[in-house]
C-alpha cells in the first residue's frame, strides 16, 4: 500500500497539540485532517481510503474511548491509536480492551508515533484488501440460483452427489449439472478451493460466522 495516499485523522481538543501533530505527520508525507472534537469528526463525510486515527483520551464532551465505541457501532474500521497523559492506567487498559491498536503517552516521540502510524495504516490496508476479496466472492455468490446454493452447501460438507440428490430430492444427474455451474460461477477448479472461498466469507457447513471473535483476535 502506498502510504502517500494514506490520511491520518487527529482528534484532540487542544489546538496546539493539533497543530504540532499535524505538522509532524505532514512532514512524514501523510495527509492530515484535524478535528477539535468527536462531533466534528463524525460530521465529516465517510472516508473510504487507507488511514488511521490518532485520538486524545481526555476531551470535554465525548471522550476518546467513547468515540471509539461509537465508531465501532457505525462500522468505521479505521485503526485507532490513543494518546494518553502519564498515569491514566484505567483508560489505557480499557482502550486496549476495546480494540485500540496501541496507546502512546504524551509527549510522544516522532519515531514511536510514525512507526505506530505506519503499522496502523498497513493493518488497515490489509483489512481493506480482505474486505475487497470478500466483496468479490460475495458478488459471485449472488449469481447463484437458490438451488445452486443448496447444492453448494451440501458440496462443502463433503457429500457425494448421490447423498446430495437424496437430501434435496433431485436426481444425481441434476446434482452434477448444478455442481458444475456452481464451480464455474464461483470460478473454482476444486471443492477444496470452494471450501476455502466459503471460509473467507464466513459460510461454514454448520455454524454461523464468528465475526466478533475474529475482530477481537486481530487486535492482539
Amino acid at each position, binding site marked *: 500500500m502506498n502510504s502517500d495516499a494514506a490520511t491520518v485523522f487527529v482528534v484532540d481538543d487542544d489546538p496546539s497539540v493539533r497543530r*504540532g*501533530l499535524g*505538522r509532524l505527520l505532514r512532514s512524514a508525507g501523510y495527509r492530515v485532517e484535524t478535528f477539535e472534537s468527536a462531533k466534528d469528526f463524525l460530521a465529516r463525510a465517510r472516508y473510504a481510503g487507507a488511514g488511521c486515527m490518532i485520538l486524545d483520551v481526555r476531551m*470535554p464532551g465525548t471522550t476518546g474511548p467513547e468515540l471509539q465505541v461509537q465508531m465501532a457501532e457505525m462500522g468505521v474500521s479505521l485503526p485507532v491509536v490513543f494518546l494518553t497523559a502519564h498515569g491514566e492506567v484505567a483508560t*489505557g487498559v480499557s482502550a486496549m480492551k476495546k480494540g485500540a491498536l496501541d496507546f502512546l503517552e504524551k509527549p510522544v516521540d516522532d519515531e514511536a508515533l510514525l512507526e505506530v502510524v505506519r503499522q496502523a495504516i498497513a493493518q488497515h490496508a490489509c483489512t481493506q484488501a480482505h474486505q475487497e476479496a470478500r466483496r468479490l466472492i460475495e458478488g459471485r455468490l449472488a449469481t447463484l440460483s437458490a438451488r445452486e446454493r443448496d447444492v453448494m452447501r451440501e458440496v462443502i460438507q*463433503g457429500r457425494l452427489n448421490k447423498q446430495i440428490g437424496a437430501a434435496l430430492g433431485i436426481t444425481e444427474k441434476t446434482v452434477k449439472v448444478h455442481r458444475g455451474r456452481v464451480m464455474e460461477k464461483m470460478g473454482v477448479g476444486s471443492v477444496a478451493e470452494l471450501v476455502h472461498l466459503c471460509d473467507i466469507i464466513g459460510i461454514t457447513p454448520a455454524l454461523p460466522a464468528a465475526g466478533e471473535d475474529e475482530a477481537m483476535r486481530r487486535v492482539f
Partner: protein
Amino acid sequence: MPEPSALPPTAYQPDTGDTLRSPEFEILISELAADFVSMRANAIDDGIDRWLGRIVRTLGLDRMTVAQLRSDSSAIIRTHSYTVPGHVPLTPRVQHEGDVPWLAGQMRNQRIVLIPKVSDLPPEAVREREFMLAEGLKSNVSIPIVIGGDLIGWISFTSMGAECDWRPEVVNRLRLIVNIFAGALRRKRDDFQLERTRQFEELLSAISAQFVQLPWGSIDRHLRSTLQRVVEFLGVDRGTILTMSPDRSALCRTIWYARGGIDPVPVALSSDYAWMFGKLCGGEPMVVSSIADLPVEAAAEREYLERAGVRSAVAVPLFFGETLLGAAIFSALREEVRWSRAFVQRLLLLGGVLASALGRQTLEEAQRGMMRFEQLIADVSARLAAVACDRADEEVTRTLRATLKFFGADHCTLVQADLARGSARICHRANDTGITPLRTDVDYASACPLIYEWLFRRGETLVRSRLGDRPAEDAIDREIAEGLGFRSMVAIPISSGGRVHYGFVLASRRENASWSKEYAPRLSVLGDTLVNALTRARADEALRTSEERFRSVVESAPSGVLIVDRDGRIILANPYLERMFGYRSEAMLGRHVEMLLPLPDRERHHAYRREFISETDARRMGGGRELVGLRKDGTEIPVEIGLSPIGTSEGRFVLATVIDVTERKQAEQALRDSARRLAEAQRVARLGSWEWDVATERIQLSEEARRIVGVEVVKVSDLVALARAEDRLALLGAISRHWRERSESLDIECRLAPPDGGAERIVRISGNTYYQPDGAPLRSVGTIQDVSEARQAEEETRTLRMQLWHTDRVARSGMLTASLAHELNQPLTAILSNSQAALRFLASGNPDIAELRETLEDIVRDDKRAAAVISGLRAMVRHKASEREGVGMAAVLTEILALLRSELIGAGVELTTDLDQDCSVLADRVQLQQVVLNLVMNAVEAMRDSKTEERRISVSCRGADGAVQVRVQDTGPGIPPERRRSVFDAFATTKPQGMGLGLAVCRSIVESHGGRIWLEPAAGARGATFVFSIPAWAGTSADAGSNGEVVAR
C-alpha cells in the same frame, strides 16, 4: 535431489495446482476443512490427534508429525505424531534446533524439504541422516507452518516402507492439509494470547480497583499478595518492590515474593548499577530477556545477574507524581522469558498502580503522624491558655502523659534547672505503666553533668536513638545509656526568661525511631507552651499573694491608712484610722477626705489635693507643718500625713498615711514598705508606670518601667531613640497625635531595641494627658507593659496555622498531580512534535522559511504556556509568608480554574463561570486560590459517585455591599441537613481519603482575610452552594505595598 521450493508467502493464496482428482482425497479434504473451521480453540489439539491417523491411512503413508516452535523460538516441540501400527511410534518431546540443524535452517527459510530417499540428503545434513537411518525412515517431506510471515513449526510426512518420489500434485495436496492445520493452530495461538492478555488485564483491573479502595494501613500486606499474583501469572520466579533510599543512593528491598527455594533480591541495589538506575530514573522500564542482550555499558548489571543466576528480568519504575519512589522487578531464574512489548506496557501500568498505592501510603503516614501531633499541640495550647493557676501543674502533667502516649515513650518529664545554683530537678513527670518513675529528689545537674551542661548552659537540643547497640564512645551517650539506662532520648531546653530554665525530656529504654528530627521543633513549641503556662501560673500566684499581703499590711498597720481616688473620695480606711478618728469604716467610704479636717483647713486642702493628684512623688503633706485632724467627737488630733500616689491601670489613687507625731518613725517605715510592695506588684505584672511633666519635659519611670526599658530615660526623645528604626516615626506620630487631638488616649505597641544589644522587647505604651483649664497639657501619665511573650505566642500560633494551610495545599496539589501532568503534557507534546517536524523540514533540504517561522512561534507560545502551569503549581506548593496585595478576584479565579481544567474534564464535569472583572480585594493570592481549589475539588468529589447525568460546577464572583462574593455551586447530592451545621469543623469528613480539613482551612483563611464563608440553604432538590465573601478593596495596586499595621502620618 529435487531443489527445495519456496513457499508462497500468503496464507490466502488459493491452491491453483493441478490436483489429483481422487474422490477419497476430496472427501478427506472437505471433511477436514469442515471439521477444523467449526472447531473450538481448546479442541484443536485433540482434533489434530484424531485426524493424523486418517490422513496417514488415506495417503498410504506411515507417519505424520507436527512440530511447533516455542513462542520464544528457543525449542522445538513435537506436539503431535501418528505412526501406523507395526512401526515404533514417536513420542512427543522437546527438541532443540541443534538436534536437526539443517532441517531447522531450511524451515526458517520457509522452504519445503523433499527427501525422496536418504541419499538425497546433502552432506551437511549429518544429524538428519543419522536420525533417518536410526528410525528406519525411507522417505520424508517436511512443510513449514507459516502464520502471518512467521514460522511457527512444520509438519513432516514420512514413509517407512518404501521410497517415495513426492510428485508436485501430491505435495500440493499436502500443502493444503498443512494450510488447514496452520489456520487452526493460528486460531489456537490467537485465542491463547487473547485469553492471556485478557487475564492479565483482569488482574490489573482487579489490583488497581483493590488499591483504590484499600484503607490506609493494610497496603503492605496487599502489596505482597499482589506480587505473588503477578509472579504466578507471568510464570516467573520472583517479584520485588524496591524503594529509593532517602539519599537516593540505593534501591532497598521492601516487599518481595519468591517461589519456594528461590532467594530474595539482595537487601539493597546501589546506584553503581548505573545503567538500570538511568533507565528507571528516566521513567523507562529495564527489560532483559536474555543476559546476552545486555548492552556493553551494563557490565555491572551483567555481572550481578550472572552471579545471582537470573536469566531474564524486567524492572519498571514506580513514579508518584514526579518522584521516583522505587521500582518493581520481576525475575526469572529457571529459564529465559521473552517480555513482549505489550506485556511491558502493561507492567508499566501495574507500576503506576503500585506507585500510587505506595505514594499514598507514604504521604498519608507522614501526614497523619504530623496532623495528630499538631492536633495535640493545638489541644494543649487551648487548654493551657485558659487554665486557672491552681490547676496548671495538673494540666502540665496531663499533657506530659498525652505526649508520652503519642510517642510511645517510657518517660516524659519537665526538668527545672536553676542556673544560678547549678541544680536541676524534675518538677513534672509522666511514665508508662509498669515503668518505675524517675526520682524527683535527685539533683540531675550533679547526676548528669554533661547533659546539664549541653542542655542548659549551651541551650542545645539533644536527640539520641539506638544507644546501647555498641559501647558508647561519646561521653554524653554514656551518661544517657549507662547513667540513666535509656536507649533513646530527646531533650529540649526551654528558656523561661529568668535564671530558671526548663528541660523537656522524652526518653525510652527501648529503641524508638518515631521522634525523628522533624518533630524536634514541634516538641519545642509544645515545651514552650507548657513552660509559658507554668510561668504564668506562678506569676498569677505571686500577684495574688502580693495583693493579700498589701491588704493585710494596710489592715493591720499601726497607723491610719487611707486611700483616696482622684476626686478625693475615700475608698479605703484601715481599723487604726477608724480608732484614730472615731468613725466606723463604712461611715467614711465614698465621702470626701475633707471630712477628716477641721473646718478652716478644708477649702485650702481642696486645692492642694487637686494639685497633688497629678504629682508623682510621695511627699509629706503640709511641708513640715504640724497638721491637725478632726475626730468624729469634734476633738482635734495632731497628725503627720504622708501622701503617695498610686498609678494603676484603673487610674490614679492617693494613699495617705496618717500617724501620730509620736509614732512618726513607725509610720515612715510603713510607707516605705508599702511603696516597695507596690513596685513588686508592678514587676510581677510586668507593668510599669510613667509620667511626663510638660513644664520640665522630663519622664519619670517607675522601677518596673525602668527595668522594661532597660536604660535610663529622661526625655521623650530618649524613649523614641530606643525604638527600632522602623517604629520610630510611628511612635513619635502617635505621641504627637495624642497631644494634638486631645480626645484620644495614647495606645501603641512598638519594639524597643536596647542599646547594649540585649534582646528586643515588644512594649505596649498607653496613657492619658491632663490639661490645664486653659487647654494646655499639664502632664501625661500612663503605663508601659512588656508584651513580648504574648506577641511571640501569637506569632507561633500564626506560624502553626500557616503550616497547616500549607500542608493542606500540598496535599491538594498532590491529588491534582495527574491532571497537572496532563495539562503540562499538552504544550510539551506540541513542542516536541513541532520541533521534530521542523528538524524534518530542515532535513528535507528545501525548507519553507515561512512554515519554519510559524513552527518556532508555536513552540515559543507553548513553552510559555507550560511555564505558566509550572509556576501556578509552584505557587501552591511553596511555603512562604502571607503576602497581602490588591488582587483582581476574576484573575485569581481564572488562574486556579485553569490549573483545574484537566481534572474537571477527567471527572466529566462541565464548568461555567460568571466573573465580574471589577472586583478587587486585599488578599494573599495563593491562599484565596487554595480556598477556591478546596471548594471546587470538594464539589468534584461530591459528584464523582453521583448518578446524575449532569455534572456542572458554576463559579461566579461579584461585588455586593462593600464586599466581594464568590459562589461555587455544584449539581451533586448536596449536604444532608444534619451535617450542614458542622461542615466547616475540622475532621468532619465523610470522604474515605480526605483529612476533613478542606473546609476548616477555607474558613480559617477566609476569616483571616476579615471575611466569612457559609453554605447557602438548599435551593431545589440537588447540589450544594458554598459562598465566601471578603471586604472589597478600592485601592490601586500602587498602594498595595504600604499596608503595615502602623501607618505613619
